[in-house]
């Protein structure tokens, strides 16, 4: 990544807290996260439940308000825009969710669902909106007759294509993809992922791709960020993160992924983490991962590790990151 370019998206020390059911307590869903995404890039964000990945995605398209920190689009802090400018600008920042059934009105025909954002934004005359919607449906590879159908008449993959078509009517620049293939059968996930890649090539789209699925994220991403309990623990080029992970959590996550390989081709040693992710209401002191980390030392409870560049473009937050990084280099690439 060249430092000179202005990122399409900059997230600066983002913090998001929600009130917890417990009196006076807050859930620190996002606890100081910073990253940049550049134009045309696919930025993968991976994490388990409680990592804050979904909240980060929603904050990026301004569906949740940051408690602190800033979100900049092309260098401009969205919080500084007038409400009129903000409304016009936000069309370029779209989000696609996991469940297309929840995103489509079961009582509306597909065409009217796809046209709806154009109507809300009062773009063009009714006939132009209709044409734009039909074009978008064709663009995602759906036959024209789909337009007059209802969601229940479509397969899961077709419905997800409809949702993608609807975001395209807004001519987006950045799309947050939140677990967009998780609800689809393996056999058609590829189709939808291929479509995302194709749209990116042709329209120069930028993606923040949020998922818990390592095999998906490592396949499509240029860079990958790993989140744990509201913080990023590692960020780097996709190859570096999956083949030469630095952070003990990333390594455990990679190792936990079941491999669809015959026994003689599988990596032997498995790092089995104990316990589960602690509550974001009472996160551990110091490093959030220390309660499950096989390498935790006293230092880890005392201080949060600094977020720093360990190798070129490869960042991590671990007190022993330099040591782990050199071990990885010496041992050669870790098995993917």
């Amino acid at each position, binding site marked *: 990544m060249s430092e000179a370019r202005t990122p399409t998206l900059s997230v600066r020390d983002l913090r998001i807290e929600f009130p917890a059911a417990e009196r006076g307590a807050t859930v620190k869903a996002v606890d100081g996260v910073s990253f940049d995404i550049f134009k045309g890039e696919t930025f993968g964000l991976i994490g*388990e*439940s409680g990592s804050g990945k979904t909240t980060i995605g929603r904050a990026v398209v301004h569906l949740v308000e940051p408690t602190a920190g800033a979100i900049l689009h092309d260098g401009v802090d969205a919080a500084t825009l007038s409400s009129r400018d903000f409304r016009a600008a936000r069309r370029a920042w779209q989000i696609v969710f996991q469940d297309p059934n929840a995103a489509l009105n079961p009582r509306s025909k597909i065409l009217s669902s796809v046209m709806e954002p154009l109507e809300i934004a009062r773009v063009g005359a009714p006939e132009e909106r209709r044409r734009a919607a039909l074009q978008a449906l064709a663009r995602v590879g759906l036959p024209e007759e789909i337009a007059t159908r209802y969601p229940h008449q479509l*397969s899961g*993959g077709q419905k997800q294509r409809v949702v993608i078509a609807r975001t395209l009517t807004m001519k987006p620049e950045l799309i947050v993809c939140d677990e967009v293939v998780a609800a689809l*059968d*393996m*056999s*058609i*996930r*590829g*189709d939808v*992922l*291929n479509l995302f*890649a194709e749209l990116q090539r042709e329209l120069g789209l930028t993606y923040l791709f949020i998922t*818990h699925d*390592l*095999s*998906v994220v*490592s*396949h*499509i991403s240029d860079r990958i960020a790993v989140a744990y309990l509201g913080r990023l623990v590692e960020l780097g080029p*996709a*190859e570096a993160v999956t083949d030469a992970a630095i952070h003990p959590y990333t390594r*455990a*996550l990679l*190792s*936990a*992924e*079941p*491999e*669809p*390989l*015959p*026994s*003689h*081709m*599988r990596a032997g040693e*498995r790092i*089995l*983490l*104990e316990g*589960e*992710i602690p509550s974001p209401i009472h996160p551990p002191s110091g490093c959030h991962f220390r309660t499950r980390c096989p390498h935790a030392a006293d230092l880890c409870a005392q201080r949060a590790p600094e977020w720093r560049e360990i190798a070129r473009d490869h960042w991590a937050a671990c007190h022993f990151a330099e040591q782990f990084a050199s071990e990885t280099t010496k041992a050669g690439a870790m098995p*993917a």
Partner: protein
Amino acid sequence: MSAVATQATPPAVPASRGLLLDVQGMSISFATAAGRLEATRDVTFSVSPGERIGVVGESGCGKTVTGLSLLRLLPEDVAHIAGRLDFMGVDLATCGEDELRDIRGKRIGMIFQEPMSALDPVFTVGEQIAEGLRAHGRMSRAEARDRALAALRSVGIAAPERRYHAYPHQLSGGMRQRVMIAGAMICNPQLLIADEPTTALDVTVQAQILELLRDLSDRSHMALIFITHDLGVVAETCTRMLTMYAGEIVEDAAVDAALEHPLHPYTSGLLRALPRLSPRRAALPSIPGRVPTLGQMPTGCRFRQRCPYAAAGCEAPQALQDAGGGRRVRCWRFRDLALPGVAA
């Protein structure tokens, strides 16, 4: 009914060659407004003691219905089971309710994807586990409690004395799944049917649960029928893989053999769709089309409309034939095809 602790050796098995479960020609059909629809057809397979079988396929292929039928958990007024389901000499398809109750939960356990809907929210988890025990054997409350605590401990729940009194909503998803496994394991079943038991869990927790299931199966020689869409889970947990498509078994092979050299184009298609097998950022192969709905089953090979190898001859009905080496495949062309697997 004898007490669990002194459980007599199971009845001698007539002519089923030491098999635990022998399913012959199981067809499950549902009465619907559109007439009788077949959800599975002629499902034939067997399970040996201690064997771990993965059942894979897309949604709508009949995996879940097959699992539920083995314990006759489908509503009997609409679902009809044809065929023989021989479990150690008892035909589960036709045996009486009393006999079934003695097997269900005691000799065959079952766990599901969503522990929250399988656990009763108004009872503590300890009470629910002990309940299975007391239902299947004369046992004092204190004894049941001790056994339940031991079961919680054996599935890796820390401080079981405290968790015993917890309600399901007070536990995390991974913890609930452990509780459900403890409940299913309490009577030392000979067979555990697990329907997507880790799909709702985080990957690091999934790894723990898979390890636990493997370990429990090894320790007690318990057989496992593992229903999942995740081929990685099958590779790491099971010894044999049954591929189901549109209500039929299309392939039956040892896991490693099925992964390396699949014989059915559908198995091969599922494997090739895995992102990890394609070069980074390359277009991913997929299986075009979708699983046919129950009312619109094609004649002949049910996969042929989606099959890249379909040829004249595929419109004839396909039998699940012996492919040698303990494998079976439902494709008449299998000898002519060299299908890519994960290693290709």
